[in-house]
């Protein structure tokens, strides 16, 4: 089984420096692209490979790039931003790539920048990833010293600057237009679309924002081709491998690179070692806090974009949070809604006012003071804060676990009302 992204990552060991990275084939994709491919050819190759954005939205990466103005009349500077602001609760996959092989990300970024002819690139890194920051700084420095960044990279005539930007903590920064505002030193509120960042992004210039895992795939696609990348999918409709994670009360929580489309059962039972002794699986969020619950009836669903969508949820980040039978679903969802209410940027009214309301109703249910009307009101909020009623995807994302909890665990909500306490806590 091929694991191109994590082949050389050994948790606990220091990542490769430039020399070691190059000895194992590192920067050969960059040499190949700069030496023998036009930017348009790189774009076409990535589009053909079927690589979809690994940050959660799952849009075809090459297609996303294709909206960037190219040619002599294109506005400059153009920007390429690596979204390393991993902050979706339950998600810990990009940390592995950032700490495990920083040069792989840098090479992927230079390739993406070349494909869109960007002049300046940023890594927007989460403040909490201190070790990654240190490693990236060192690796960027090494790349500059070796002529892999800066003016006239490897004599190709292509130039690229790269900066590391560490954030100061706000979930909204993961939304690409909010991220651009944060990079410009503003509050991280989302921007109206259109214009899309490809046309008017950072400082009003054409900009592409790609997730870390997406970018890390690029050197391997350039080296091995689109057909190879598609074959990694192992019968799935989606190409490539995927970093999957499982957390919660399982025997072996962790993050693994596996063929796209591995089943839920294989992830939980084989890789995560099954549930801890004494606990049963009750449900799980397949790809972070803003994805719909799935339950034991979905154990044979393939973890790819289309299959998870057909099961009523989203692949999201592919890092799963498992809910066991001793954890209260109302308390679980309250924890999620507390997060979303706190992290709402306040830009649009439904999200700013609705999410705290949802949070309060869930808390009163959890404390045994909630009513059946509260449960009905929660149901209504899943529509009021759903797609089309808010400025960005934060509130609709927040409603995904709530609406599915009300669907699968309605009885648990009602028991909180009839028992006047949380049935999962002794004595309430």
């Amino acid at each position, binding site marked *: 089984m091929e694991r191109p992204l994590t082949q050389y990552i050994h948790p606990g060991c220091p990542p490769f420096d430039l020399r070691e990275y190059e000895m194992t084939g590192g920067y050969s994709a960059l040499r190949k692209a700069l030496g023998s491919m036009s930017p348009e050819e790189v774009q076409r190759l990535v589009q053909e490979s079927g690589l979809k954005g690994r940050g959660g939205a799952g849009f075809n990466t090459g297609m996303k790039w294709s909206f960037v103005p190219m040619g002599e009349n294109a506005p400059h500077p153009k920007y390429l931003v690596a979204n390393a602001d991993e902050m979706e609760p339950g998600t810990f996959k990009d*940390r592995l790539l950032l700490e495990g092989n920083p040069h792989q990300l840098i090479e992927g970024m230079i390739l993406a920048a070349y494909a869109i002819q960007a002049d300046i690139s940023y890594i927007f890194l989460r403040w909490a990833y201190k070790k990654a920051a240190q490693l990236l700084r060192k690796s960027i420095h090494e790349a500059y010293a070796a002529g892999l960044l800066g003016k006239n990279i490897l004599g190709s005539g292509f130039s690229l600057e790269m*900066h590391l930007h560490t954030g100061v903590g706000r979930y909204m920064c993961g939304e690409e237009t909010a991220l651009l505002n944060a990079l410009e030193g503003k509050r991280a509120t989302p921007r109206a679309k259109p214009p899309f960042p490809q046309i008017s992004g950072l400082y009003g210039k054409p900009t592409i924002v790609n997730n870390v895992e997406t970018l890390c795939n690029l050197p391997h696609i350039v080296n091995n081709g689109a057909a190879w990348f598609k074959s990694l999918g192992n019968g799935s409709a989606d190409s490539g491998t995927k970093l999957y994670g499982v957390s919660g009360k399982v025997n072996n929580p962790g993050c693994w690179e596996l063929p796209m489309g591995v089943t839920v059962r294989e992830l939980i039972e084989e890789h995560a070692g099954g549930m801890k002794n004494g606990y049963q699986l009750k449900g799980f969020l397949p790809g972070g806090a803003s994805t719909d619950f799935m339950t034991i009836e979905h154990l044979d669903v393939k973890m790819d974009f289309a299959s998870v969508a057909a099961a009523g949820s989203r692949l999201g980040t592919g890092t799963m949070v498992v809910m066991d039978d001793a954890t209260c679903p109302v308390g679980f969802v309250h924890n999620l809604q507390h997060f979303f209410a706190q992290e709402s940027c306040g830009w649009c009214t439904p999200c700013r006012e609705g999410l705290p309301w949802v949070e309060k109703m869930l808390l009163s249910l959890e404390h045994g003071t909630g009513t059946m009307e509260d449960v009905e009101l929660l149901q209504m909020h899943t529509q009021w804060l759903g797609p089309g009623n808010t400025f960005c995807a934060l509130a609709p994302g927040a409603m995904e676990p709530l609406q599915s909890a009300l669907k699968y665990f309605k009885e648990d909500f009602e028991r909180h009302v009839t028992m006047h306490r949380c049935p999962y806590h002794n004595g309430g």
Partner: protein
Amino acid sequence: MITQKINKDNVATSGSTAHYTTGLQEEQYLTDLERQAIDHEIALVPYKSAAVIEALKIVQHHRRWISDESVNAIAAYLQMSPAEVDSVATFYNLIFRKPVGRHVILVCDSISCYVMKYGDIYKALQEKLHIKFGETTSDQCYTLLPNCCLGCCDHAPALMIDNDLYKDVTIAMLDRILQKYT
């Protein structure tokens, strides 16, 4: 690492209403070191105000938190209004607009840590330090804050103190962890 030096004047005037006047007073408030670091960031962006988040990080690094006086000084230096600077300072979770202790303990309260009972860790910290979230110990050693997902869900519960991440935290580990910070 957070600088140990405390600007006594800042602490004394915390919470007071900002008296904003432009000019020399604010310019002189920032140290040479802070100004050099901010100048470095200004050089990387198309206009001065784009460096405001970096400026806040720099000043906080030297003074632990952002006082009203710091807001005014940064505003004057970047040719912004204090309200603009404050709107950014108050937006981000890790810019502190109130004094914090020498060490900030960030307890992850997101979903995987919830499932793995971060609440027990928080309760134990409360008992040991006699403070709740948002409070600072009387000796100014620790400030206790909740924090969004720290991205190590496979090693929940997790917490961070200053730049150090602690994974698979148990109550039994807490004394040894806390001892490292004085």
